[in-house]
C-alpha cells in the first residue's frame, strides 16, 4: 500500500489524539470526525503546540446496528438502499420513523456485550506503546466510544493512566475514566435522552445532558459528532475543543521507556519467562538479544524476565533502508503454552498479531519463526511506501 513516509511520519510528535467512535459511525465517518477535530484544534491552538499533535482513529465496531437498521427499514423504503444511506449519513432529513428505529436499536444493544477485552486489544496495545515511547495519549470518545474508552483505561497500569486522558462526547456511560468530567452531552440529544429514560433506575445510566446549542442542528437526532456536537460555531464544539486543550495540560509526560521511530515493533507476552524478538534488516543484519544494534535500527528494550515488552525501532528516515525487514519470534524459555502479541507500526500502518506458541520449541535462537514482513519502497512522491504482510 502506498504509505508515504512524509515529513510527519519522521517527526516525533509528543501527544496522540485518538478519535473513538460510537456504533452508529462507519469507518468513513470516523475518518471525517478525526479530521474535523484536527481542523478545530488547528484553528484555536498556537501553531507550535498543534504541530506536536498526531491524530489517529481508534475504530470501534458498529456491532450490527447499521445492518439491523437497514434490514428493518428497507421495506418502507421500497428497496431503495441509497435512500437509506442518505438518511443514515444525514444527507437527507431523517424521518421520524427512521429516527425512532435508530434510537430503539441503540437502546436495545446490550452494553456489556459491546466491549470485550479482545475488541480493545489493538487500541490498548497502541496506548501502552505510545505511553512507553514517552507520549501523552488523549481519547476523544463519542457515544458508545466512551464505553470502549473507559474499559481501555481499566486495562492500563497506574503509571500509564497518568498519561492517558479522555474527553467524553455524547457520553452513554455513567462516568469519564471513573470521574465526572470532562464531558459534553447536548440537551436535545435524542439518543442520550432515550437511554436515560430507558435506564432511569440504573446507576449505569448516561450522564445528564449539560450543554445547549443556540442554533438547531442539521441532525434530527442531535447526536451525530460532526453535524451536532462539532457543528461550526456551536457552543458544544467550542466546549469540546477547550476540554481537549485543558485535559492535555493535565496529563503527565511519561518517562520514555522505548524509542519511537518510523518503524517500531513491540512484543509482549504472558507470564512465561522469555520470548525473544528477532528482526532481520534488509542489509542482512540480524538484530536480537545477542546483537541489539543493527545498521538500520536497534532493539532498545530486551526483556529476559517475563511479560515484555521487547521493542525494536528504526528511529528515523535517515537510517531507514529499502527492502524487507523480517520480524520473527523465538519462544526461548517457558513451561507451557504462551501467547505473544506483536504490534508493528510502519509509516501510517499499524498491525497487531497474536501468536499462539504451544511450547518453547516454537522457534529457536538460530531459526526463529517468521511472523511478518515489512516492505519499504521508494514512493512516487519522493518518500517511502510501506507494506506489512504476514
Amino acid at each position, binding site marked *: 500500500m502506498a504509505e508515504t513516509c512524509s515529513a510527519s511520519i519522521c517527526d516525533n510528535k509528543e501527544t496522540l489524539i485518538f478519535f473513538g467512535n460510537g456504533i452508529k459511525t462507519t469507518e468513513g465517518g470516523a475518518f471525517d470526525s478525526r479530521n474535523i477535530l484536527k*481542523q478545530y484544534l488547528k484553528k484555536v491552538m498556537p501553531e507550535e503546540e498543534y504541530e506536536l499533535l498526531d491524530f489517529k482513529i481508534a475504530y470501534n465496531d458498529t456491532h450490527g446496528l447499521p445492518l439491523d437498521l*437497514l434490514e428493518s427499514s428497507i421495506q418502507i423504503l421500497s428497496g431503495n438502499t441509497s*435512500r437509506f444511506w442518505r438518511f443514515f449519513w444525514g444527507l437527507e432529513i431523517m424521518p421520524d420513523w427512521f429516527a425512532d428505529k435508530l434510537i430503539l436499536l441503540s437502546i436495545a444493544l446490550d452494553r456489556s456485550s459491546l466491549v470485550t477485552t479482545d475488541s480493545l486489544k489493538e487500541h490498548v496495545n497502541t496506548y501502552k506503546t505510545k505511553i512507553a515511547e514517552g507520549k501523552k495519549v488523549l481519547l476523544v470518545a463519542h457515544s458508545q466510544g466512551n464505553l470502549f474508552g473507559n474499559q481501555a483505561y481499566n486495562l492500563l497500569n497506574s503509571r500509564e493512566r497518568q498519561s492517558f486522558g479522555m474527553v467524553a462526547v455524547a457520553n452513554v456511560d455513567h462516568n469519564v475514566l471513573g470521574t465526572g468530567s470532562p464531558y459534553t452531552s447536548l440537551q436535545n440529544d435524542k439518543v442520550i435522552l432515550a437511554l436515560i429514560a430507558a435506564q432511569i433506575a440504573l446507576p449505569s445510566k448516561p450522564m445528564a445532558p449539560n450543554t445547549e446549542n443556540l442554533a438547531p442542528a442539521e441532525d434530527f437526532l442531535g447526536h451525530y459528532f460532526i453535524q451536532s456536537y462539532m457543528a461550526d460555531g456551536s457552543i458544544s464544539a467550542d466546549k469540546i475543543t477547550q476540554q481537549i486543550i485543558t485535559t492535555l495540560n493535565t496529563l503527565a509526560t511519561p518517562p520514555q521507556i522505548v524509542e519511537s521511530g518510523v518503524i517500531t515493533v513491540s512484543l509482549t507476552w504472558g507470564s512465561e519467562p522469555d520470548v525473544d524478538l528477532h528482526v532481520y534488516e534488509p542489509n542482512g543484519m540480524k538484530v536480537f538479544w545477542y546483537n541489539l544494534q543493527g545498521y538500520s535500527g536497534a532493539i532498545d528494550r530486551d526483556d529476559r524476565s517475563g511479560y515484555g515488552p521487547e521493542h525494536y525501532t528504526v528511529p528515523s528516515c535517515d537510517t531507514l533502508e529499502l527492502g524487507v525487514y523480517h520480524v520473527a519470534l523465538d519462544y526461548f524459555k517457558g513451561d507451557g503454552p504462551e501467547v505473544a502479541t506483536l504490534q508493528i507500526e510502519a509509516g501510517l500502518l499499524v498491525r497487531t498479531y497474536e501468536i499462539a506458541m504451544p511450547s518453547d520449541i516454537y522457534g529457536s535462537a538460530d531459526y526463529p519463526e517468521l511472523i511478518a514482513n515489512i516492505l519499504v519502497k521508494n514512493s512516487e512522491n519522493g518518500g517511502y511506501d510501506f507494506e506489512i504482510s504476514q
Partner: protein
Amino acid sequence: MKTKKKILLAAALLLLACTNGWGGEKAKLGPCVRQCVQAYNPSLADSGADEFMAADFRAKECVQLCKEKLYQGECNSSADGCCHPEYLSADPDCQVEPPPEPPGTNNLPPDPGEAGKETLAGIDSDDDGIRDDIQRYIALNYPESGKTRAALRQFTLALNKAILESPDEESALYNTEFIHRASECLWYIFSEHSIQIKNILKAEYLNTMERSRAYLDYNHKLGGHVFSGNDFDEYKTSCTFDPDLMED
C-alpha cells in the same frame, strides 16, 4: 375560406394530440399529410393514399404545416421510421438515435439500468475499473470540474477494492489505506465539504442490499483497529494525480 379554416382546425387538434419527443422530428411527411387530410375529411377512406394524396389536397395547408414540423407525425409503435412518443422503449424507431449527452460526457457507457444492479460488481462495460452507473454519476454531476471527477474516481476505485476485494481482515486493512488516501485527496480539494461529496457518492454506490451488506461486512473487519493519517499539509500527496495542474 371555410375549407382552410377546417384544415387549420384539424391540424391544431392533431398537434394537441401529439406528444413532443426527439423522434417526432424525424416524422415522414407522407403520414403527416395523410392524417392531416383525413382529419379534415374523415369520410375519405385510407385506401392507399391515392385519393387523398391527390394534387388537390397536397396543395392544401397540410403540406405546409407538416413541412414546418408543426405536426409531430403519425407513428406506429413498430418500425415505420418514426418514433411514437408513447412507445419510447418498444418502438425500434425510438432506439436509433439517443438524445445527445450533456457537455463533457462523450464516450460514457450507457446507463446499465436495473441490469447494473444484478451483481455485486455491477456492469463495467468499458473496463475502466468503475461501474458504469457510477462512472455516469460522476461525469453527469461534475461535468465542469476535472479535478472533482479525478478525485471521485480515485475514491470509487478505492471503494471498489474495499468492497470487492476484502475477504478477510488483513485485506480489509490493506484496502482501507487506499480509502484513506482517496479521502485525504478529496479533503485537500474540498476541505470539510468533501464529507458530503464523498457520502453522496457512497450512497449512490451502495444502491442494492448486496452492496450495502458487503460494505458493512468490510466495515466490520476494521473494528478494534487503529488508523493513522497524513498531516493536512501533506494531503495533496495522497492524490494519484496532481490536482493543482487542473484549473477547475
